[in-house]
Each structure stands twice: as structure tokens, then as C-alpha cells.
């Protein structure tokens, strides 16, 4: 049983990302979209928090591009068709509204 966690809020504005990382399972994955892509801001606390974990991190490519965020090699850029496939690949999708 795996869950795709979808985050859309900036990690610099609330605790959603840290709450998510506290309960995310090893088979789960994280999809960053909207302002949540700021978690990949180089040399920031959220960046290191994600880098240090072995969970799979996906990033909605157009949201990263719109914010001039480079995607590190340990994360994977996805488009909307890939987002749909990710939601199928996992048993549940949990959006951190």
C-alpha cells in the first residue's frame, strides 16, 4: 500500500512539508507542485531535508520552471500525463490542501 503525497504550499510558509516527512512511508512518494517547488531552493533547510531522505521526490515541471527552480538529480520532473500515471501507480493520493 503506497501513497502519493501532493504538496502545493511553500515550505517556508507553514509546516506541511515537515509534517508530511514525519509520516511518509518508505514506499510512498512526494509530488511538489505550485509554491511547494520552493522546497528545491538550493542550500535551504527543506532542500537538505528532502535530499537526506530516500523517498522518491517528483516535481511538476512547469511549476518549477515558472519559479526558476532547478531540479536536482535526486528529484524527477513530471508533466500532467506523468502526474496522472503517478496517481495510478500509488494506491492513494493524499493532497496536503
Amino acid at each position, binding site marked *: 500500500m503506497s501513497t502519493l503525497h501532493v504538496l502545493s504550499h511553500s515550505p517556508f510558509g507553514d509546516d506541511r512539508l515537515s509534517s508530511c516527512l514525519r509520516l511518509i512511508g518508505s514506499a510512498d512518494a512526494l509530488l511538489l507542485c505550485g509554491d511547494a517547488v520552493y522546497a528545491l531552493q538550493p542550500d535551504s533547510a527543506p532542500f537538505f531535508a528532502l535530499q537526506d531522505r530516500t523517498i522518491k521526490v517528483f516535481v511538476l515541471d512547469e511549476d518549477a520552471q515558472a519559479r526558476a527552480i532547478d531540479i536536482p538529480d535526486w528529484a524527477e520532473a513530471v508533466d500532467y500525463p506523468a502526474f496522472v500515471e503517478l496517481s495510478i501507480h500509488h494506491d492513494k*493520493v493524499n493532497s496536503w490542501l
Partner: protein
Amino acid sequence: MKFAIALFSAAHAPSSRRALLFAQAALAGGHQIVRLFFYQDGVFNASDAVVTPQDELDLPKQWRAFISEKQLDGVVCIAAALRRGVLNEEEARRYQRNAASVSAPWELSGLGQLHDAVQDADRLICFGGA
């Protein structure tokens, strides 16, 4: 694969656009959308009264075109809609308001429609917030 999609944010929120793009990608990928449910501020996506600035994406218009063209079930939570002044003709008449702004293909109905859609679908995907 059958999807139920719930949207919690108003038309001007980026998450509403993501919901539309996800829905379009799901259908393009050969999947089915059993229902689109518009809850909380998501009800504003169904309002004909929204006027979007000319240089911005007109999401209520795009939702309307998408739902009509693909003949989808676009359900607006009636309780969330009433408290936000998003009424169809029937509700405007019932509450003596001169402010109907929801029409076909949209339908006002209860939260049970979300529950029902989740039972039928393989995945529930929620969009909202930022």
C-alpha cells in the same frame, strides 16, 4: 482507471488550474472521470458571474467548455454554494434572491455526491489550497 476529482479552491487559485489540467490529462490518457465535485471555495468555478481580466486564464469558462464537451458530471456542493451566493435558478427562486449564476452543465447537489463518486472511482484526487 476511474477518477473522482474534488476541487476546493476558487477559480483564481493556481490549484484550480492544476485540477483542470489534471482532468484533461486523465481523459487524454484514456481514463474516465466519474465526477468532478466542487466544494468549499471551489463552487466559484461554476459561477457565470465571474469576470476574469482579459489577460488572465478564464477558468470558469474553461471548466464549462471542458465539462460540456466531454459530457462530464460537474457537481457543485449546494450548501457551500448557497452560503457563497452561488445559486442556480431553482435556488434563487426558493430563497427569493435575484442572483442566479449557475446553469447547465453544472448541477447543484449534496456532499453525498462526492461520497458516491469516491465509492465508484479507483482514485480520489483533491485539489485546493495554494
